[in-house]
């Protein structure tokens, strides 16, 4: 199988799976709270509905506003294609950690600029909060995966995951435990989950991510929602493959790839369930406490890097 087809297939898989992952978090949360909740495929229905509607744009909004959904979607697709989710072979070899974090940040910045571009108070407020959070999250993402890269001596994600897949027992070190904790917190912050943000709130003044995208509608909103779901799926998939690398294919044979895709789906849905369950027990932090949480996760990531050198 051509590496390029494999990459496109993987991007498609993540794109199709992402709204389901979001649906799982919502459904699990509703059930645990004693509510009936929506169906797992509901986010897909919402995206389909929005895709059929023409978008509107606020008066005076410029190119940043109209470009952001496309930029966000394409960076998400690019990450979904290259990061070794299904197979460590193929173009996964070109998935460098720093590039992936850079692409994530590019999407974040595009959305923050779009928030400013709307010229509304909420857009600016959301963007300002998002950048405060992003400035603390992105270094943590980098450092946490650095801790894992010292073992194999490269920042190439394909090599890191392949090393884990060939010897899963070697993944469980104090360093990777710290790195996991740091990455998990960074994931919550990056994907606007409780305790950093509340994805289901209607209170404009408390929003972070939602405040930036308040002006989007129709197709543009569908793209933003879809790409945001993909970012959640990507980060959960990354967590799964870095810290539980079982089942990742090391070649590109059909059977291996199909099995790996199935395993990935199970792992993502499992993590989504865990995330939802954790959210039921969590409440949203006061905004001024968020930097404390993120500074804590950064410190853990730093300790993970130190530990990986000392105990290596």
């Amino acid at each position, binding site marked *: 199988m051509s590496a390029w087809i494999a990459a496109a297939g993987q991007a498609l898989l993540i794109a199709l799976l992402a709204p389901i992952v979001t649906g799982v978090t919502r459904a699990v949360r509703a059930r645990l709270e004693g509510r009936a909740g929506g169906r797992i495929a509901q986010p897909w229905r919402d995206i389909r509905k929005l895709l059929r509607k023409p978008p509107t744009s606020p008066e005076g909004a410029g190119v940043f506003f109209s470009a952001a959904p496309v930029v966000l979607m394409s960076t998400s697709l690019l990450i979904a294609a290259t990061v070794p989710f299904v197979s460590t072979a193929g173009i996964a070899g070109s998935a460098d950690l720093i590039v992936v974090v850079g692409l994530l940040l590019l999407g974040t910045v595009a959305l923050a600029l779009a928030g400013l571009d709307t010229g509304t*108070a909420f857009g600016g407020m959301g963007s300002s909060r998002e950048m405060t959070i992003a400035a603390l999250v992105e270094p943590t993402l980098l450092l946490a995966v650095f801790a894992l890269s010292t073992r194999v001596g490269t920042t190439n994600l394909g090599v890191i995951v392949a090393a884990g897949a060939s010897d899963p027992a070697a993944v469980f070190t104090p360093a990777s435990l710290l790195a996991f904790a740091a990455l998990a917190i960074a994931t919550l912050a990056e994907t606007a989950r409780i305790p950093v943000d509340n994805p289901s709130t209607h209170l404009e003044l*408390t929003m972070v991510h939602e405040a930036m995208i308040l002006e989007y509608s129709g197709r543009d909103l569908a793209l933003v929602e879809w790409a945001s779901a993909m970012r959640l799926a990507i980060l959960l998939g990354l967590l799964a493959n870095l810290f539980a690398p079982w089942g990742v294919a090391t070649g590109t044979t059909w059977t291996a790839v199909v099995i790996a895709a199935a395993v990935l789906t199970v792992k993502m849905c499992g993590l989504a369930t865990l995330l939802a369950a954790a959210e039921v027990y969590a409440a949203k932090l006061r905004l001024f406490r968020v930097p404390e949480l993120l500074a804590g996760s950064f410190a853990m990531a730093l300790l993970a890097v130190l530990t990986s050198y000392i105990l290596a």
Partner: protein
Amino acid sequence: MPHRPHTAVIEVGSAGELGRHVTRLLADGHRLALIAAHHDTAQHRGGQAIRIVYLFVAGQPDRRVELVLRADPAKPHIPSLAALSFPASRFEREMRDLFGVEPDNHPLPRQLVRHPHWPQDWHPMRLDAGTRPPLTGAEAFPFLTVDGNGVYEIPVGPVHAGLIEPGHFRFSVVGETILKMKARLWYVHKGTEKLFEGKHFADGVALAERISGDTAVGHSLAYCLAIEEALNIDVPPQARRIRAMLLELERLHNHIADIGALCNDVAYGIAHAHTQRIRETLLRINKTVTGHRLLRGAIRPGGAHLLNTPDLMQISSTAQDLAEIVEIALGHTVVRERFTGTAVLTRQQAADVGVLGYVAKASGLAYDARTAHPFTNLGETLSIPTFTEGDVLARFRIRAAEAQNSAAIIRQLAPTITPGHHHTETGDVNGHDGDIRCGTGIAEGWRGTITHRAEVGSDGRLSRVKIVDPSFLNWPALPVALTETIVPDFPLANKSFNLSYAGNDL
């Protein structure tokens, strides 16, 4: 049986006399319950005038004093009491908008109630107001601009993302810290007080129940108490107990909803989901008790009507459930951290603004109409919780404590009640020709003390009903409490006050 309060009426002639009376009453522990203007015709006993009634009340024992001042209807001027009482300054602005009464030396003689589209010189409560003239272009609303390095404004509303009533909030913010918040309300003027005029007093109940949808019992009770005092109707003790119980049923379901909503505002959704479940149980109990989920239709002048007594097993299990939810929520460090120290209203501020209800109790003021102006004796079961912190946590805990106390009162009262009509015949209440009979009703609704003052003509028709929902007095306290609060905590602070827009803007 609690004694029937006697209302002292003092006619005041001059501004100086009014000031002396007010100073004395306030020093004597009275609070200003309402100021009501009346546009009297020449047939009125006092002659043609804009008659202003200042109602001062004090509790334990129940004391009520009315000061009556008359102004020339052609060019009404009154001395402003703003220097003596902050609530007075608000009532004066309300009268200025609705009656065209000019308060002399008022520090802020600006529109309050008046819709910006109404013509400037149209005062709808005056007898000569006629139908509403065509709306004019909106006039500017003077927001105070805060200048400074890094200060910016966030306008929110009047249309919000959630299903809430309309209100515009203008925040002047530096970073995330609120420097100043100005609430622009008054989008929901319905002319409620005008709608009462000319109605037969028995028909006013339905309207009173709809003043603020979540306070059907509180408002209809205050209304009936006012009517009964005006017409000298005695209410059977059994009906009094039914009313007291309905008041607590209303308090219970509203407080539980608020407790859940406060948890939801800090994204603690599970507590919210369970309070919703409990509230639904209570609404179904309400339906079996009165035939209406929000307890409408049970209270009427002269008595009360009950279909069934509430299922006390369910009330008890509800109270236990609630206690558990409150314990879990306050045991959660993040939830507690969010509530603690947020939007503090100090005791002094609370007293100065003249707040009522749980907002007052959370700041250490124990005023409650059930002890200050009782209509039935609740005995030892009634307890008035107070906290001194004045923050969101205190307002949350007041609700939790009051809800438990309500359940206890319902458990005490229900066995003493038999369902059915308990009623004093109000048929023969017509007075002498030209006789205007007036009465005041004070009831502790779930938000706080509600005051109604009704005037009934000789034919049993209402000539004027003045309504004061606690929200009218509590709204100004919200911006005060927001000092040093951060923007993302505003929804939480706002929910902890949970003031009525409909009850505020009649």
